[in-house]
């Protein structure tokens, strides 16, 4: 591995530690938000970050945290660039990320966002992250954050957040 690849790999490893402030079990890598890490011609590390939702207030915070995390490991200069060229989708969430969500008590996105088509569905029957029952009911299409909806399990009676497909 040459020096450039070594630095880039180091960055990817450090980014495992940068977590979503709202859902602290998920790293920016679990969310598929990091689209690239490159050492450019002027020896600057450029991290390309894509936001989840347009209005997500965590995006600006994550930009700062990424810079801080890399600089704390003596990697600088660092530039975090918001890259909209490929639009973020829940399809980029890793399987391990989805499992971490479920273990945390948030139901992960069901199915593929690509299949959403012209109409988005928020069906009853999202599996309960607590007891796995499919006997669940939509309570509110927008929940604690714009990316989540609120469901209730009719078996164990627990309410839970559902991360919407987008």
């Amino acid at each position, binding site marked *: 591995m040459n020096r450039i690849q070594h630095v880039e790999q180091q960055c990817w490893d450090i980014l495992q530690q940068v977590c979503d402030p709202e859902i602290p079990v998920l790293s920016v890598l679990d969310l598929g938000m990091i689209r690239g890490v490159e050492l450019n011609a002027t020896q600057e590390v450029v991290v390309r970050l894509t*936001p989840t*939702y*347009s*209005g*997500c*207030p965590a995006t600006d915070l994550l930009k700062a945290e990424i810079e801080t995390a890399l600089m704390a490991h003596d990697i600088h200069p660092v530039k975090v660039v918001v890259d*909209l*060229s*490929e*639009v*973020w*989708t829940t399809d980029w969430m890793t399987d391990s990320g989805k499992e971490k969500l479920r273990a945390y008590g948030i139901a992960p996105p069901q199915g593929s966002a690509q299949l*959403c088509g*012209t*109409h*988005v569905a*928020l069906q009853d029957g999202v599996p309960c992250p607590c007891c796995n029952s499919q006997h669940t009911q939509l*309570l*509110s*299409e*927008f*929940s604690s*954050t*714009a990316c989540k909806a*609120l469901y209730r399990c009719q078996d164990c009676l627990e309410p839970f957040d559902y991360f*919407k497909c*987008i």
Partner: protein
Amino acid sequence: MNTKALSEFLLHIGDSQLILSHRLAEWCGHAPELELDIAMSNIGLDLLGQARTALSLAGEVEGLGRDEDRLAYFRTEREYRNLLLCEQPNGDFAQTIVRQWLMDHYHALLFAALSNSTHAQLSAFAIKSLKEVKYHQRFSSAWMERLSLGTQEAHDKIQQGLNELWRFTAELFVLTAEEQQLVDAHIIPDLNLLPQRWLEMIQPELTRFELELPQTGAYRRGGKQGLHTEHLGFVLAELQYVQRSYPNMVW
């Protein structure tokens, strides 16, 4: 490419989203029920995020060093380019839902068309915004249905809201002379083709919801020329107050 025409077009989109976002935020803490309070706040937040992208891109294209904050907080009414529909007062919940339903179908149609723009950043903005708008459409269409086909009182309030707001729908897809160059360069779609498609989207729902279009018709225009109704001044007075009081202050 005509950079002025493109930056003005981006301001038109971003300003509409910013003002509509502001109106939705006025419901925060006052909605009929908790889930509606949260829904309207979140839809407003999505629109605010989209407005930030549109305004930032407008400033970048314009090339005069104005960023999203300079554009949002230091322009006056005559410089704002939003649709008049967005600045109208919320009225009651029914009227707010009618406005949202009209705007969500407008956004869905416009962003689907803009997804094919030859301008990469505009296309990316449209593709992303469209995904979020589909969830807004789900919300507003469902509430149009519940209220229109609910009690007589609910139906009447929706009809009243439609009577009040329909006049502002004339300018939804107005194409200015300057924007024609953007159409020729395939940067924006031919807006003249969209009113018919928008009507085809909403007419079946109007029929299903047993609603009638008001006799007065749609005729109010002026947003793209900065000619606004009296309401925008009050909105900007609130929106811009802190920044105007302490110019250039940052958090």
